[in-house]
């Protein structure tokens, strides 16, 4: 395989100092096409170091943020994007830099799938994009991603609510589901939250509260399967546990192997 050029030197190992910013920039773009984002980021970084005051330095900085992002090196991508916003806030690429900053948190949620802390940071930086650059082309996809991240947070609350519901800690469960109903109404979890409230209040014996929750569910989400379940529970023809094939062996298989623990 070809001689592995050490970053910091141009083709043929000649130190980068002798190349113009434009040549290094093209070299960076060449590395990007070759799907070697880490080396590309290195080259763009060198432009910023060697020619900090050239026009190329500005473009290299945003390309560096993009290259680090492609390489999933979210830390450096964030640092580069933040530097761009500090130095060139009025440039039209600043919107893209802010968007890249938000993406660096957002994509980590995909990879991580469970951590609340990251979701929260993603929401804040996405809101920054939506508010500071409302008419840029990134605002629309930022809004979309905001809703997804918001949905993800609601999912976490639901997961904890179901945990307490299953272990018959109904008061704790009700509090968690109320958080979803009050703070996350726009997410896809609200109908289920309302149904769970019906289940929890009925288990406690607070039938009028259950009726209220069922009414809200019926009024806003009449066509959902959740409303059918609630309706059945509230009108008393609810199914008994045995009748839904819940013998202990199938329960063990479902919960231990498949991980559906409800």
């Amino acid at each position, binding site marked *: 395989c070809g001689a592995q050029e050490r970053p910091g030197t141009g083709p043929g190992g000649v130190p980068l100092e002798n190349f113009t910013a434009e040549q290094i920039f093209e070299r960076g773009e060449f590395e990007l096409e070759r799907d070697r984002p880490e080396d590309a980021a290195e080259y763009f970084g060198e432009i910023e170091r060697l020619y900090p005051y050239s026009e190329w330095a500005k473009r290299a900085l945003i390309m560096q943020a993009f290259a680090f992002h492609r390489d999933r090196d979210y830390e450096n991508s964030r640092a580069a994007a933040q530097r761009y916003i500090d130095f060139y806030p009025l440039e039209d690429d600043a919107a893209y830099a802010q968007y890249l900053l938000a993406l660096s948190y957002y994509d980590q949620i995909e990879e991580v799938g469970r951590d609340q802390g990251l979701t929260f940071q993603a929401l804040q930086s996405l809101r920054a994009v939506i508010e500071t650059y409302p008419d840029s082309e990134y605002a629309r996809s930022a809004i979309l991603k905001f809703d997804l991240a918001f949905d993800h947070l609601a*999912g976490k609350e639901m997961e904890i609510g*179901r945990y307490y519901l299953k272990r018959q800690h109904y008061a704790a469960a009700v509090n968690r589901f*109320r958080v979803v109903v009050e703070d996350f109404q726009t997410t896809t979890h609200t109908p289920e939250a309302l149904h769970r409230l019906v289940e929890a209040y009925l*288990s406690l*014996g*607070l039938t009028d509260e259950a009726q209220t929750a069922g009414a809200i569910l019926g009024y806003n989400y009449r066509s959902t399967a959740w409303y059918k379940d609630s309706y059945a529970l509230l009108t008393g023809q609810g199914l008994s546990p045995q009748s839904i094939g819940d013998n202990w062996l199938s329960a063990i298989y479902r919960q231990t192997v498949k991980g559906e623990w*409800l």
Partner: protein
Amino acid sequence: CVAQYRDHGYVPREDQLSQIVPGIDTRATVEDVVGVPSTSSVRTDGGYYYVSSRMRSFAWREPEVVDREIVAISFDEGGIVRGIERYGLEDGRVVPLSRRVTENSGGDIGFIRRLFGNIGGLTLDNFGS
């Protein structure tokens, strides 16, 4: 085998409850005298509920609620205490929980990634004597 008991939640004591006078006390005074409710109504202007339950766990069986006490304080539109009711374990109904779950849109990383995502340094206890 000996069963183990655990108490959860909180219900105010009789002497504290007697200090609450329907028609006079408001939500704030209730919270001072008796404490913050375990949970409250789904409507923002609904009642306060204090729930305390005693769970009994015995060997391999699932812990079961053997006693539950609920003190419900209801308020009128002006936020003044209307009445105090009590519910017990017998009022609760056995409700089969629906097993359907709203799928989290995206964000669920692949099985293989989760399987090998956590591989790390070698630790000695793999050799184990």
